[in-house]
Every structure is written in structure tokens, then in C-alpha cells.
């Protein structure tokens, strides 16, 4: 699997994830990032940030949702090498890193048991977070729209809507 083509345009890569910078060598080795790696893969396999889940690996389920510069995106549909110089936030980056107090949105999910198996939950929380960042007091329909790319097969949707609405009401987005 050696490439006969010339080297890619860069040989190291720096990602900013949850406020921290991480540098990688580009390559196929166990600790390197390959040009074909998706951000979801890098977060999980290189940074151990396994809160970002992969389900469809095809842009259709939202389980891998992270924030890039505050916007919700599916990390399985992004090449890691194209994510330099961006602020990446994962589920592990929510809450207060100093006090360890979780984000009010996360707390609201706990209070409403807004999950069953919980596999879809990090992605849903990240989508909801992106919404509340932009629109701190959304309507229930706006929440539905913001979460329309998130799969939940257990059907926790109704509790999720309650949780997001309650968090918004509490101004859950400081």
C-alpha cells in the first residue's frame, strides 16, 4: 500500500479539540493520521474520544455529530486532514473543564431520562447544543428540525424534546 505519488501537501497536522491542540504525523502508522481518515475515526482511535459514536458511517444518522466552529457537523463525513485550524468540540468538551460541572443541557438529559440505550445520545446532545448556541429559546418544532439528522432507534425523541425545551427554558446555555 505504498503510494507511488508524491507526498501530500503537508506532513504534520494539528487539531484543536475541546480547546487543546494535538499534533500528528501524517501516515499510516498506529499513531499517525492518514489522509483517508475521517475526523470521527481520528477522534476515537487516535485521541480516545470515544464519546463520538459511529453508526452509519455515511452521513445519515448523526451519531458522530461534533461541533466545528460551533456548528453541528457529522464527523464521519469529514477528512481529518481538512480539519486543521478549526475549533472542534466533542461531547467530552461540554461542561466546565475546571469545576467538572456538566453542561445544563446534559443535566437536563439526565433529569428527563432522555435516552434509552444511550448510543445516539452524544450526537443528539451535540446537535441540540449547536441549536441552543444559535437560538437560546427555540420552539419545539425548531428543536425537531435541528435534530432531524439524528437517528434514535429506541425512540427517546419525546423525552429528548422535553429535555432540550427544559434546558432552554432554564437558560441552559450559558
Amino acid at each position: 500500500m505504498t503510494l507511488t505519488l508524491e507526498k501530500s501537501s503537508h506532513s504534520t497536522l494539528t487539531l484543536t479539540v475541546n480547546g487543546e491542540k494535538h499534533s500528528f504525523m501524517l501516515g499510516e502508522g498506529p499513531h499517525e493520521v492518514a489522509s483517508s481518515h475521517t475526523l470521527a475515526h481520528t477522534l476515537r482511535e487516535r485521541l480516545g474520544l470515544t464519546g463520538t459514536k459511529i453508526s452509519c458511517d455515511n452521513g445519515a444518522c448523526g451519531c458522530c455529530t461534533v461541533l466545528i466552529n460551533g456548528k453541528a457537523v457529522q464527523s464521519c463525513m469529514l477528512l481529518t486532514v481538512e480539519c486543521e485550524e478549526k475549533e472542534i468540540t466533542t461531547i467530552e468538551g461540554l461542561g466546565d473543564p475546571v469545576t467538572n460541572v456538566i453542561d445544563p443541557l446534559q443535566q437536563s438529559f439526565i433529569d428527563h431520562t432522555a435516552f434509552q440505550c444511550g448510543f445516539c445520545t452524544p450526537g443528539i446532545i451535540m446537535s441540540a447544543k449547536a441549536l441552543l448556541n444559535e437560538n437560546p429559546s427555540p420552539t419545539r418544532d425548531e428543536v425537531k428540525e435541528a435534530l432531524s439528522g439524528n437517528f434514535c432507534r429506541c425512540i427517546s425523541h419525546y423525552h429528548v424534546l422535553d429535555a432540550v425545551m427544559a434546558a432552554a427554558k432554564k437558560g441552559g446555555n450559558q
Partner: protein
Amino acid sequence: MKLFAHVNAYSVDETIKLLAKYEGTAKLNAGGTDLLGVLKNRILPNYPEVIINIKSIPGLNTIEEDEEGINIGTLTTLADIIASPVIEKNYSLLKEAAGTVASPQIRNIATIGGNLCQDTRCWYYRYPDEVGGMIKCFRKGGKTCPAVSGENQYHAIMGAKKCFAVCPSDTAIALIALGATLTIAGAEGTRTLPVEEFYTPLGSVLNSGEMIAAIYIPKPSSVAGQRFLKFTLRKPIDFAIVSVASIITHDQGVCFDARIVLGAVAPTPVRALKAEEFLKGKELSEEIAAEAAGLAMAEAKPLSKNAYKLEIAKTLVKRLVMGLT
């Protein structure tokens, strides 16, 4: 995903040079929401050796307005198109179309240029290599099309000869209705082309050394009614089973101009020229609308499992003309 070399391009010129250098073995990556799926499932006989990232080209993600229209850079995301006040005001058709694409997360990275150039969604074509091997159908250089006598419920009901896959782009039909043109850059310089002439039964007229740089939309008459309807089983995620875009200008119920474009019914977007012609000068009524719908679909010849698409297409055209949802 299988490995490839990756280069960032920093200008359109550089992109064109890179494309020339790699002679058909390179693929452009814009938002990647279509391309990465194609690569992950290894659906094509030839896997690209180089991926050229064009998101690194500055200045291609803007929407610029002048007296006569707007110019949309190819890298403009669908989310930015939806959020643009200019587009909302004068080109609402495009906003509506873009708003039906996929999901908020996809729209945050998907580009308009990528939307126009995306590959078909025929499920034989897209069958993943990992479960028994990809399917080498006619469109991939094979001899036959398994869809013709197979599971063709989402396939073309008109205009197809050898490949029955439909063009999946939602923005394409909106742009055609709006009379938009593309700025295409290539080794011989740039050319412009109406979006209407962009598509061919097996893809587009774009050659492997070219890229779309921008899309220009002339300003439609402010009295023209712009409408977009897309039929799907679910609002998000689904590609159109049938979609229709129209610009209809009427005065007190009498139509004096109409452009109607159908998506997902044929290998390319289809203008309903006969229906447009028919509507001109007519007083809009349920009967007239139904007749126009019939004309729009006059050439349809459904396959074994997609006669329902014809019914839906007629209904959509009728509702569009009537201003219903």
C-alpha cells in the same frame, strides 16, 4: 477508507493544473458528503489516487449580488444559502430546495457545487463492495442495468435508455427553473453554461479536467411565484422520489409565464416544456392544472415498480400550479 494522496488547492487555476497533472485519477473534494460515501463503499471500479481539497480555495464561498442577479461561489454551503437574506428575498426557490436536502449537519458542510455534481443514488450503483462486491452495471462500464427489471421503485419513469438512475440533486431543478448558469473553469479557460444544459444521461458535461467555479442566477421578476415541492417518505434524509420546481407568473389568475422543472423522474432534470407552453395565457384552475400535469408527464413510461411515481409527479405539478402543498 482506502488510502489516497491528499492535496489542498489554493486557487481555481491550481486546481485545474492539478486535475491536468493527475489525468483523471484525481477527484475534487468540496463538502465531501457525497464523495466520502462513494469512496467508503468502494462502489467505483477505479479508486481515485488523489483527492484535491478545494475548500482551501479562498473566496469561493460567497454570495454576491448586483443589479441583474447573484453570483454564488461553488463552495457556498447549503446552510449559508438558506441563511442568506438575498436568496430568501428574491430566490426563495433555491432556499426551499436547499432546505430539503439531507439534514442540518449535512447542510452545514455540503456545498452547492457538490450538490450539482453529486453522483447518482441508484442502489445498484451504490451497492457496497463489502457485502459481496460492488455491482458493475451499465453506468460503470458493465453490460447491463440490473434496475430495469429489478427493484426500480426509485428509478426513472421517463427519458432513460440504458441507465435508469435519476439525478438526485434538489438544487439543480431549482436553479434550472431560475434560469441559472454555471461558470466552469478548465484548462482552456472558463466557459459558462446554463444549468439546464449541464446534465447528461450518465452524469454531466463536465470533463475530468474541469470544475464548477460559480453559479449565476439572473434576478427573476418580482411578481413571479416561486415554488418547490419534494415528495419523500420522510422530510429529512430522503432523496426526492419526485421533486418539482416552478416559477409561474400570473396576473389575476391568468398565467403569462411558467417554468416547471421536474427532478428524480429522469436521468436528468426535466423541463416540462409542453406544460409551460400550455399554461401560458390560461386561467389557472384545477382542470387546467391537471391538464398541465398530464402534459408534463406525457412521455412517461414507468418501469415494473415505479408507476406510482408518475401519479405523484402529476399530483405535484398540479398542486404546484394550484399553489397547494
